[in-house]
């Protein structure tokens, strides 16, 4: 019997972020409408592997996920060893838009989770006319901190272990063990200080409470989906955010947590497929 080979292909692209050359890894599968996926803080694009293996998605969408520099298989820029990694809103927007333009993605649907869900709000506000739509998973315009990020990067606490143990509670209780632990493995593999540096963006540099009302959903539809078990971005946070964006659609996903696409892919697809169908239908109609 032939071995099962997945349809996902991975490649590297050389881009310039913040004036520095970066070797950026991305994976993709499928064809059709570009669906650009943004991973969570302290993890990487593997979180989207189930979508990339789902023909119900890939028959209609070209699903693409890239690892931000410092994450996954994207190397940090030269000189990283002497600096403290801190992601900013400006750097994050530049990375997403540079990647999208370099791959000549035409009005991509940008779907991000957690900090990826946060940045799609800024992308919709600032670059909405270039995008087809945004989907924010576990997304809100602001977060109430629930722990001190100093614990994430210090010599007397193992970084990989503590990052995973902290976020372990954000996985929904019904998540299958196989997917729960694969999700946490991503956090265990993150480089030293990377999760903490991402949280600089998430906690400090991305208060979009005044920003989101400026999103025009006629240019860029907004869909927000949040798991009922997420206590980092709570359902209330998401509903509050959606309430400020005229035309935004929000849904609470029962039984899911902060990592819906990787922690419980079977349940997540029940929620995401109707959203993707809707975006596809709107795209094929008159604009």
């Amino acid at each position, binding site marked *: 019997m032939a071995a099962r080979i997945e349809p996902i292909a991975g490649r590297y692209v050389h881009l310039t972020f913040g004036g520095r050359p970066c070797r950026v890894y991305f994976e993709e599968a499928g064809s059709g409408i570009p669906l650009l996926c943004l991973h969570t803080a302290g993890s990487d694009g593997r979180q989207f592997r189930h979508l990339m293996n789902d023909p119900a998605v890939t028959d209609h969408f070209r699903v693409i996920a890239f690892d931000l520099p410092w994450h996954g298989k994207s190397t940090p820029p030269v000189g990283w060893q002497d600096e403290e990694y801190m992601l900013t809103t400006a750097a994050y927007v530049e990375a997403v838009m540079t990647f999208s333009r370099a791959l000549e993605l035409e009005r991509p649907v940008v779907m991000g989770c957690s900090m990826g869900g946060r940045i799609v709000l800024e992308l919709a506000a600032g670059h909405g006319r270039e995008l087809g739509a945004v989907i924010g998973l576990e997304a809100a315009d602001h977060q109430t901190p*629930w722990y001190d990020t100093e614990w994430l990067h210090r010599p007397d606490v193992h970084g990989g272990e503590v990052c995973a143990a902290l976020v372990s509670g954000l996985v929904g209780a019904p998540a299958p063990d196989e997917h729960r632990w694969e999700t946490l493995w991503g956090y265990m593999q993150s480089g030293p200080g990377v999760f903490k540096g991402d949280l600089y963006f998430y906690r400090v540099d991305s208060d979009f409470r005044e920003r989101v009302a400026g999103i025009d959903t006629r240019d860029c539809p907004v869909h927000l989906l949040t798991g009922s078990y997420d206590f980092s971005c709570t359902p209330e946070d998401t509903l509050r955010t959606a309430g400020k964006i005229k035309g935004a659609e929000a849904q609470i996903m029962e039984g899911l947590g902060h990592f819906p696409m990787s922690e419980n892919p079977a349940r997540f697809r029940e929620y995401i497929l109707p959203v993707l169908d809707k975006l596809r239908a709107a795209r094929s109609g008159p604009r």
Partner: protein
Amino acid sequence: MIDRLPGLVNGDEALVRRGRFLTCDFLVEVGDVAYHVSVEQGRIASVTLGPALMRPWRFAIRAAEEAWREFWQPVPRAGYHDLFALTRFGRARIEGDLQPLMANLRYIKDVLAAPRRLARSA
């Protein structure tokens, strides 16, 4: 439930191995009832029902009895399913020296959640 920890933890080889670098005493409060939990190299050496005057501990985890009861459900409901979900919503407090807790976070979380197994096997 806390008094059942020695049997639940010490019989779990993987859990004891995970905590093998931890030797410390911590306090768990279930409502008004305090339990001193003594860990030696990942094994629960003793659980002592308080109050134990003048007995030191490194860190304390305090929550109402109702919060712990929900936490120990086989599949706890949202907001009660994790130590930090409890603290995030003001249902539990963590105090003291957090270094041994954070350095052994998965172990401590698993120890505290071990009573869920009793409900599953009931």
